[in-house]
C-alpha cells in the first residue's frame, strides 16, 4: 500500500492535477506531495486552483514539515522539496535541475530513498525532461511508477521522456490513474487484512 503519493507536473499540469484530485475518492487519504512548476509570484489560493476537497487540506511545503493523512502538500516556488530519510520534508535552494526549482527529479529520488516500495510516483503533463530520472529511481527502489498518457497530456514531453527511459507500472489518463491508485490500495489493504502483507 503506498504510504505516500508523489506527483510531478509542469506545463499543462494544473488542469491534469485538478482532474486527478477530483477523481480520487474522499476516503483515499494517503498524503500527496506535488511538485508543479510555477513562476515565482504571490502565494496562490490552492483550493481555488485545484478544487476544494472535503476531508483534505492543501498546504504549501514548509521545511521539516511532517505529513499526515489527507494532506495535499504543494512545493513552494523557488525551493527544492525533498524527503529526508526519517520521512520529514526538507527545502533547499540548491542549483536548479533542468532549469527547474522545485525539481521533480529531486522529490522523486528522495521519496525513493526514504520510502522505497511504499511510494507511488505519478508524472504528468510537462514540457521538460524533469521527473523521468526520478521516476526511474522510484522504480528501482520498488515503488509504483505511473505516467499520464502522452495523448491526454497537454504537453507530452515529460511523460514521453519517462517512457523513453523505461516501462512504468501504469500509463493512463488522469482519471484512470486515480482508479488505478485506489485499486492498488484496495488490493494491498485486503492483503493486509488477510495477513499477507509483511
Amino acid at each position, binding site marked *: 500500500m503506498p504510504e505516500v503519493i508523489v506527483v510531478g507536473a509542469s506545463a499543462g499540469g494544473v488542469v491534469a492535477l485538478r482532474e486527478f484530485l477530483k477523481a480520487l475518492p474522499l476516503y483515499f487519504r494517503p498524503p500527496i506531495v506535488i511538485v508543479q512548476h510555477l513562476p515565482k509570484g504571490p*502565494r496562490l489560493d490552492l483550493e481555488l486552483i485545484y478544487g476544494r476537497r472535503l476531508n483534505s487540506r492543501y498546504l*504549501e*511545503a*514548509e*521545511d*521539516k*514539515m*511532517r505529513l499526515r493523512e489527507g494532506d495535499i502538500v504543494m512545493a*513552494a516556488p523557488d*525551493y*527544492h522539496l*525533498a*524527503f*529526508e*530519510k526519517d520521512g*520529514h520534508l*526538507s*527545502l*533547499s*535552494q*540548491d*542549483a536548479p*535541475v533542468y532549469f527547474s526549482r522545485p525539481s521533480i*527529479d*529531486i522529490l522523486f*529520488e*528522495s521519496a*525513493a*530513498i526514504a520510502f*522505497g*516500495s511504499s511510494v507511488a510516483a505519478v508524472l504528468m503533463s510537462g514540457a521538460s525532461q524533469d521527473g523521468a*530520472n526520478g521516476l*526511474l*529511481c522510484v522504480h*528501482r*527502489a520498488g515503488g509504483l511508477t505511473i505516467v499520464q498518457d502522452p495523448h491526454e497530456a497537454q504537453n507530452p514531453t515529460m511523460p514521453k521522456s519517462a517512457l523513453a527511459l523505461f516501462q512504468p507500472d501504469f500509463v493512463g489518463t488522469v482519471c484512470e490513474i486515480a482508479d488505478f491508485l485506489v485499486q492498488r490500495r484496495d488490493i494491498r489493504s485486503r492483503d493486509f487484512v488477510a495477513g499477507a502483507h509483511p
Partner: protein
Amino acid sequence: MKVMIEPTLRLEDENGPIERELLLRGIQLKYGYDFTHYAQNSMRRRIDAIMRELKLKSALDVLSLILHNRKLFDDVLPQLTIGVSEMFRDPAFFRAIRENVVPVLKTFPRVTIWCAGCSTGEEVFSLAILLHEEGLLDRATIFATDINPSALRAAREGIYPADEMKENTRNYLASGGRSVFNTYYTADYGFAKMDKSLLKNVVFSEHNLATDGVFAECQLILCRNVLIYFDPILQNRALDLFMGSIHPSGFLGLGSKESLKFTTHANDFDVVDERWKLYQRRRTHA
C-alpha cells in the same frame, strides 16, 4: 531495504551514505567545521557536485585529497555552505520589519542586531539601508556572521554584479523603501559597489552555529534560509543559541518556508507575522 538508486548522474549504493559521513567527519576532525548535522538530502547533492567538479568517484576520494590540501578545502568550503541571496529578498518581510519591529527598536537607546548566516552580505546591506531610513543606523550595532570566510570577505567588499541591481531595486521599492535605491551604490564596469558608510556599524565575524556560542544580547536576530540546511538536531541547537542571545522582548526573523512550529522552541515565541516568519520572544511570567 535494499535501494539501488541511479540519480540524475550517478549510481548510489549502500556505501554512499557511509562515505559521505566519513567525509564530513574527516572535515570536522581536520578543519573544525561540523557539517555532520546538515540536512542530508541537500548535503548529498552538494557533495555530488564537488565530486563531479573534481572528477572523483566517491566522497572518500574527496576526503583523501582535502585532508592533505588546505587550499583545496578552502575552495570546497563555499560549495558546502553558500546559499543564494538577493537584497530585500521577500520584500514583504522587510515591510513587516519596518511596521512591527522598527517602532520597538526606536524605544531603545542602543540597538544590537545579529544577522546570522549573512553569506555574501546582501541581507546586511538591506538591513543597514532600512535602519538608515528609519534613523536607527547610528545607534545600531549589526553583528554579521557566517561560517565561511570567503563569503565574509565578499560581504565586506560589498561589490555585486550590476545586473542584480534591477531585481534589488524592485525588491527595495516593494519593501517600502523611502529613498531612491541607486543612491546606495555606484555602478561601474558591470559592477555595483555599495556605499561603504552603510557598514560603519557592522561587525563582520566568523561564527559557526554548529559549534560556537552566545556573544551578545540582541533586539533582533535574522537567520533566513539557513536552518533549512540543518537537520532537526542542529536546527534546535541554533535556536537554543538564539534563545540565549535574544533580548526579553526581542524579535527573530526566519526564512519564509522555515517555521518554529516544528522545533523545540515553538512555545518560546509569539508569532508576529505567520506568513513572513517574524517572531517575538514570549514574555514569561515566572
